């Protein structure tokens, strides 16, 4: 069983692909949030700097700083190599923002990461945030307020939608992690649930799932078997989806019985996890559970 690592105020980070448009933009936003970005890497651009962060050609050189974790904005064809560079340097966790990485590449680097017991968040993820301490991702900061609800999600904007509600009713979030929208990701719900089970700063967890795959069903079984004991609430997107049609990204497609919203909702409800009908209901369900 692999150990999951997330982030906190102490996490020191390298940004891979820092000189690209997205890399630059989010470097600024992460710095504004207070994330400790100590170095950036873009092969061939060593010696430059981005928002005051020094840029190196390789992580090997960037390691003149102490670095714990990495966030990757490198385009899909080069992203796997960036992941291996971070893995070889022992960085943990590695957040892979990049969209559109071929599944085969992801299977390979995820297997390598698991062998080395390193946490990969993503690919195609908004990242992970410990509210008020460290934002390692592209999520809008303003929807989060510090609190004691954890969020695990397969979707980006839907997470912000739900986090916004949770913040507005005064609960707030502890740590929120985007698993990523691709069919294969470094983490699944169960990995993250294990971490939240042990996290002293989290009192309850929200699972935001969607059609495709059976990660939600497996999470439900894990909860039913007592693997996660804190209060949990879920929302599943895609009740209206048509089997065989991809709803927007490779992950959101129903193939086989277990991929449907119905199957996921039934599994969660039989694990005694209430499933919200609308995104806004998540916050109210939580409030009821926690009071």
């Amino acid at each position: 069983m692999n150990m999951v690592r997330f982030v906190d105020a102490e996490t020191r980070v390298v940004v891979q692909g820092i000189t690209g448009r997205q890399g630059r933009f989010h470097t600024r936003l992460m710095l504004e949030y207070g994330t400790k970005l100590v170095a950036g890497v873009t092969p061939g651009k060593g010696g430059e700097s981005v928002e005051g962060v020094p840029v190196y050609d390789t992580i090997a050189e960037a390691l003149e700083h102490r670095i714990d974790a990495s966030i990757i904005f490198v385009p899909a064809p080069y992203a796997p190599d960036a992941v291996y560079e971070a893995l070889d340097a022992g960085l943990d966790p590695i957040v892979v923002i990049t969209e559109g990485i071929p599944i085969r590449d992801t299977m390979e680097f995820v297997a390598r990461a698991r062998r080395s017991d390193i946490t990969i968040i993503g690919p195609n993820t908004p990242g992970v945030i410990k509210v008020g301490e460290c934002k390692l991702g592209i999520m809008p900061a303003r929807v989060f307020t510090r609190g004691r609800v954890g969020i695990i999600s397969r979707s980006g904007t839907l997470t912000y939608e739900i986090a916004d509600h949770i913040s507005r009713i005064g609960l707030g979030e502890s740590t929120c992690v985007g698993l990523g929208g691709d069919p294969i990701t470094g983490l699944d719900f169960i990995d993250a649930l294990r971490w939240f089970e042990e996290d002293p700063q989290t009192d309850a967890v929200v699972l935001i799932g969607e059609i495709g795959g059976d990660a939600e069903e497996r999470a439900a079984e894990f909860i039913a078997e007592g693997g996660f004991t804190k209060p949990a609430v879920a929302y599943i997107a895609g009740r209206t989806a048509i089997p065989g049609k991809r709803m927007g990204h490779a992950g959101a497609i129903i193939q086989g019985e277990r991929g449907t919203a119905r199957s996921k909702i039934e599994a969660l409800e039989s694990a005694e996890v209430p499933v919200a009908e609308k995104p806004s209901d998540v916050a109210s369900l939580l409030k009821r559970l926690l009071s």
Partner: protein
Amino acid sequence: MRLLEWEAKEVFRDYGIPTPEGRIASTPDEAREVAEKIAQPVAVKAQIPVGGRGKAGGILFAETPEEAEEAAGRLLGSTIRDVEVREVLVEERLNIERELYLGVVVDRSSRAYTALATSEGGVEIEEVAARTPERIIRLTIDPLEGLRPHQARWMVKQIGLEGRGMLTAADILVKLYRLAVEMDAELTEINPLAVTPEGLMAADARLNIDDNALWRHRDLLERFGESELLDLTEREREAKRLGLTYVELDGDIGIIGNGAGLTMATLDTVQLYGGKPANFLDLGGGAPAERVEMAVSFLLTDPRVRAIFINILGGITRCDEVARGVIAAREKTGVEKPMVVRMIGTREEEGRMLLEEAGIHCLDSMEEAAERVVSLLGRR
């Protein structure tokens, strides 16, 4: 990208997987010529990217070239499972003793390719999984190790093969795995793998390629074009050309969102309030005004769409860009349809102001907005 049977079989041949002799034909005449060359009874098979073709009458048999011509004439231009048949594959009719199944598929939960084998070939693997799951032999393939021949032998031995047959089937399975990896397959199947007096033969072939990996397979696109477009609707094809992430549904409320999850949730919420979504349309992250304009115009000009609901949670996406796009679409198409916009986040104020000036009211809550759009149509 889903390849058609004949395309998948060409790839199979590249990898040395045995396939029946045959060729594609797009006219009855061509079908006759192919049958003449094969000079034995043939099967004439509709080339459509959907399952259950056999049961739906998409496979005909012919003893003579003339019969093949006639069969092709019947299939070509007909519609099977809502898809028009434009090509048929004419190939030697196999003398099938038994039908097996071999497959390599991406398995999400093990995060790896899984090899599948069963003696129950000829039906969909899902059906076998439902009826006799114990007949399916599975092996999770470590992405860092690959499928070893000895593992393949052990798998096919368990579906009842022995001696030469075991060795050949194992060899085919190893090739199928290599093909899966090298061609970035999401799924590839030989179903059925026919046991014939002459040996094993891939009687049908399925190969779906990971769209994210198509840049590694430009040659494939050149060879086969985009045959998967065959089972898309007219508007879906048009959307694909425009680069929009669009799925057609059968309702009357046009939906635009940003992010797949949020857009699906929007559909679900509209439905919850009694509305019927006309589509799924995901703008993705950071869409500029031009893209928004294109998306909105696309729905405005769809006669099925009676009202539009735009749901934006601004992060990378800027609300002012969205507003500009919406306004431009209305102006340029000249089409007026009831429109509900829910928009919060980055540059929310600017965006709202622009929309208000254009007479479009903005809402804060997606639930409220969903209710509104449904009631708008109800009131008519």
